Every structure is written in C-alpha cells, then in structure tokens.
C-alpha cells in the first residue's frame, strides 16, 4: 500500500506548504488529547504501589506526553486527506497548509524516537517498550489499519489512549498487575460511548470523509444501543480499582454517583424520541463523558494525595 496515495489529491493546493510557526507545531501534538494522557499518566504514577524518585517520575510523564504528541503528529500526517474534508479538523496544521506532510512525518518520528529512548534509558526498559507499542498501536493499528476499515475502529483503537496510566504504573513497579489493568479498562470502556456520542452529532463530517463510524454504518438507533451497552459496562469497570485495592471509600462513593449519571445520560440518549432530542442528548453525554473520566481519575489521585486507605484487594 502506498501510504502517500490517500492524501495526494486532497493536499494538492497546499503542495508547497510548510514552515509553520511554533504554535502550528504545538497544535500538531494534539494538546487537548495530550492533557488527558498526562493527567491519567500522573494518576497511574501515584496509584501504583511503590516509590519512584520525583525526577524519574517527572521524566516518565514528560516522555509519555511527548510520545502522545508524536502519535498525534503521525496521525495528522496520515489523516491529512480526511481531515481536509471534515469541518472539525480542516483547520489542523497539515490540511490548512501551515505544515507540510513531510515535516509532520519527520517531527512525529523524531519525537517518537526521543520519547521512547529517553523513557527506556532513563527510567525503565519495560516502560519504554510499552510506550513504543502504544505509539505503534495508535499510528499503525488504529490510524492506518482500523480507522478507515471498520466501525469498531475506536473500540479496538481505544486501547492506545488507555495505555498511559499503565506505562507510568510500570515505571514505578516494573510490572503489570490488576491495578494497572483496572486503570486501563476505565479508559478503554469509556472510549466507545465518548466517541460515538461525538459521531452522532458529527455524522455528516465522518460520512463525507468516508470514515466508517458506527452511526453512518449501523445507523443511529444501533449506535444509541451500543452507547448504552458500553455505558453499562463502565459500571463493573468503575468498581475494579476498589476490588484491586487501588481505591477506597471516597472513590467508591464518587464513582458510583458519576457512573450512575453516565448511565442516565446514555439512557436518555437511547430513549430519545426525535432527532432534536437525540442531538441534545448526544452533546450532553459527550460533555459529561469527559467530566466522568477526569473525575474518576481525580478521585483516585485525591485519595492517594490525602493518604486515604484503599480497601483490601479481592484478587
């Protein structure tokens, strides 16, 4: 497969693009996605049993952040053709012509190498290896493989966004255990309802770009049903940090309330009687899903920082 083929026609008008500003390069790192990655990785660092020197903890988070940015740059390089036709992404640095595709590719590859090498050499080879796998998974498995082929793209691809707390956990403990898997599953199970809610009110964009998101392949009712199923699956997953001995009472109470609200929002969307109600419900669910993930991880972090005891593990 010729990787350059897809975006030749879409990017012809900006063939001589390049020389973007520092701000354009910063945008190439997908800073909003990066903020979520940094936050969940910090929580993984504090939640893991054991101790890491603060400097090495800082390097771990820095490398994970740079690795996430590298993935974003490589994603924007490959997806420039479909980004150009979607309203939400048309102003990104590559389709807008601020940064040439080759520059984005070079920048992404350089950052990937530096982040993996730094984490592997400075902190832990295992953590560096998992960061390398995460970048590979996001760029090759998700972006190049799944995204344009299957409506299950974000279900499987969601794993890439779920690895960061596991990487920082490994940096502390040196191995993967149930606690790390619990944090992974929180993000993994949250991803489908989050992105499908977005796809419901951005369906036209994805259809125009030929991306097989669930609403434009299986239909809106099926998407609403799948969102509800995954929101319900978030309930047992939300209990996992408690069962694994990572979290305590404060998290239990907060997580129960947040997840009940998450399921309620998904149920309202599922029962939406007409297009207007559905659009409103999808937007509300999308907004709340971001709050849910941040709050769940914030509860874990607060418990650790406050020195509150976790409940005993059942595993």
């Amino acid at each position, binding site marked *: 497969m010729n990787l350059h083929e897809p975006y030749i026609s879409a990017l012809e008008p900006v063939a001589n693009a390049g*020389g973007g500003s*520092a701000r354009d390069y910063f945008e190439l790192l997908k800073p909003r996605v990066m903020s979520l990655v940094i936050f969940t990785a910090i929580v993984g660092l504090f939640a893991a049993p054991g101790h*890491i*020197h603060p*400097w*090495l903890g800082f*390097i771990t988070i820095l490398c994970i952040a740079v690795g996430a940015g590298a993935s974003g740059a490589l994603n924007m390089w490959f997806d420039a053709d479909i980004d150009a036709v979607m309203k939400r992404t048309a102003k990104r640095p590559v389709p807008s012509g601020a940064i040439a595709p080759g520059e984005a590719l070079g920048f992404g590859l350089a950052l990937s190498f*530096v982040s993996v090498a*730094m984490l592997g*050499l*400075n*902190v832990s080879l295992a953590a560096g290896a998992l960061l390398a796998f995460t970048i590979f998974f996001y760029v090759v498995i998700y972006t190049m493989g799944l995204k344009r082929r299957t409506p299950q793209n974000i279900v499987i691809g969601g794993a890439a966004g779920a690895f960061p707390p596991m990487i920082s956990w490994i940096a502390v403990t040196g191995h993967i255990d149930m606690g790390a898997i619990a944090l992974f599953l929180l993000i993994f199970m949250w991803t489908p309802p989050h992105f499908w809610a977005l796809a419901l009110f951005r369906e036209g964009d994805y259809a125009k770009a030929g991306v097989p998101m669930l609403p434009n392949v299986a239909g809106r009712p099926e998407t609403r049903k799948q969102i509800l199923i995954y929101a319900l699956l978030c309930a047992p997953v939300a209990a996992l940090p408690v069962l694994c001995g990572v979290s305590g009472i404060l998290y239990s109470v907060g997580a129960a309330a947040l997840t009940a609200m998450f399921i309620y929002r998904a149920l309202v969307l599922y029962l939406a009687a007409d297009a207007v109600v559905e659009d409103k419900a999808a937007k509300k669910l999308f907004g709340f899903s971001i709050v849910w993930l941040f709050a769940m991880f914030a509860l874990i972090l607060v418990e650790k920082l406050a020195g509150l005891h976790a409940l005993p593990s059942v595993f």
Partner: protein
Amino acid sequence: MVDKVPMKGFSPEDMKRRRSRSIATAIALVAFMVIIFITSIVQMKGGH
C-alpha cells in the same frame, strides 16, 4: 541525460525559518543532555 535544475538560493524568509529551527533543535539537544546528566546523578545515588 538529467536536465539541469536551476539553482535557487534561500530567500530571507527561508533563512529566518532555518535559523529558528536550528535554535529549536539546539535547545532540544541541550535539554536532552541535561536530562540524561541529572538522571545519571539520581541513579548513581540509588534514587530509583
């Protein structure tokens, strides 16, 4: 036979861009060195 490609110099804008990139690369390399240096000290003191 390969056609002769006319040589084109860098414009002042190109030069400005190349200079700022060189500075950014230099800063990144210095930061990389500093990080490895501090980490070496931390690990020599048994910090992990």
